[in-house]
């Protein structure tokens, strides 16, 4: 099993979600995160004083999938989340040892 994690632009979340649902993904976890990469922060001005806001808000999206689905799913996310601007984010895949569904106790692929 794999965990696909994507850091994307907050405004692209809905597009990505729809693309994943069309692809047959039945669930996902989303969290609000802050950070920066090549896209630096922005500047805010209060009473003439400028502040740089280094860490900008992004959305982290996580999906658990079977090994063979991971690549395709990553492609779906990348395609849906792309605006072509700096700051579109990243997607990575990491291996997962075990998944257990809390309600039933079943584990492995059936728990995804």
């Amino acid at each position, binding site marked *: 099993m794999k965990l696909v994690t994507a850091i994307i632009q907050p405004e692209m979340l809905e597009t990505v979600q729809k693309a994943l649902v069309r692809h047959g993904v039945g669930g996902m976890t989303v969290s609000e995160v802050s950070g920066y990469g090549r896209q630096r922060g922005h500047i805010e*001005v*209060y009473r003439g004083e400028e502040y740089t806001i280094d860490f900008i808000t992004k959305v982290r999206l996580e999906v658990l999938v079977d090994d063979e689905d991971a690549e395709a799913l990553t492609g779906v996310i990348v395609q849906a989340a792309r605006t072509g601007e700096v700051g579109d984010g990243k997607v990575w895949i990491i291996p997962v040892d075990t998944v257990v569904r809390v309600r039933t106790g079943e584990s492995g692929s059936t728990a995804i």
Partner: protein
Amino acid sequence: MILELNSGDTAWILISAALVLLMTPGLALFYGGMVRAKGVLNMMMMSFISMGVIGVLWVLFGYSLAFGNSVGGAGIIGNPFEFAGLQSLLVNDPEASYPALAFVAFQACFAIITVALVSGAIADRASFGAWTAFAVLWGTLVYFPAAHWVFAFSNPDAGVVGGWIANVVGAIDFAGGTAIHINAGTAALVLALVIGPRIGFGTRPMRPHNMTLVMLGAALLWFGWFGFNAGSAVAANGLASLAWVNTLAATAAAMLGWLVVEKLRDGHPTSLGAASGIVAGLVAITPAAGAVSPLGSLAIGALAGIACAYAVGLKYRFGFDDSLDVVGVHLVGGLVGTLLIGFFADPATSGDPADPGVAGLFYGGGLDQLGKQAIGAFAVMAFSFVMTYLIALAIKYTIGWRISSADELSGIDLAEHSEAGYDLSPVYYTNKVQRTLVLTKDDMPVAETTGAKK
């Protein structure tokens, strides 16, 4: 002369008093939104405690010190015993057009907001006890005398002697440009100097945490200010109406002035600029509301908005942490408004062509009134500076001003009030103290029998 009690005037004074009291919670929102989230409650509490402290002092002896017959006829301070406890005002005066207690109520709210204004200079770092002590001392030793100088008018027929700026100098201060704004602004400067800057001032970002609170606060201040200025006519009449219109005109122009400066200088007109411009305009028109025309108000407002937009940058140049710009807005705005009366005072504002009012420089009155305005403004400024310095030092070397640096870094709300301004998480992180770590018998054996150590 027997006057009948004027119910219209009385009603307007009582409503104005309530409007002015509303300004203090409004100020708490205005200030509270401008600090970081970890200090919002302390910022608001510094305003709220003024309602508590001054509300009590005003009844006990504050009104007497401000509006009692001048001790020795010198115009410096009112007789503190004359209206002590307000007991002597329970008897109706058959010659008054409104009850004295209505005026007591109205002026109480002025005293409350003046003390609260000062707190903007000392955000995030002052012990609440020290601030409360300051409110008691500063209200008694600085505001009540200054209010006497400016607001207590002599009444020779009744043998009442008032304050020296209002009666001897003859400076025009309709609703408190000197006694309130120059006074509070000067005190703010002194406290910023004595208490010192917040940890990280000038190097770490301290951006406002909630601009919507600031906007709401500015709105409530403007709303309440109609009572502040139009109520200062102490009657429901033409003068009150003029003051009302001027309070609209100057404030609108000041907001535009501030925003134009921001657009040209910083590239963006900001909501904080709009809110600040509103307050700058309100401050500047306060002394002038009854003495200038609506067109003069537009000029005073615009000039105040522009001047204050630049003045708020001074603290960075001189390195004093007047956190929320009480100096840049209230001292500078108060000076602008008080001094510009010397230029813009319009004799037509008396409402009676046969008995014209004071004329400023632009209306052929020469420099006479400007000189009076300058004396009033700088006398209050000097008095406030010296007295506030003495009070601030007295507190510094007795109970001390600063909370510990650890408390300041983790947030004054928790340290001084044991509260947090916001709990926006749906996760229930908290627990009642007595339940924390109280484990039942069933919980215990697992750790005991496995020999697990903490």
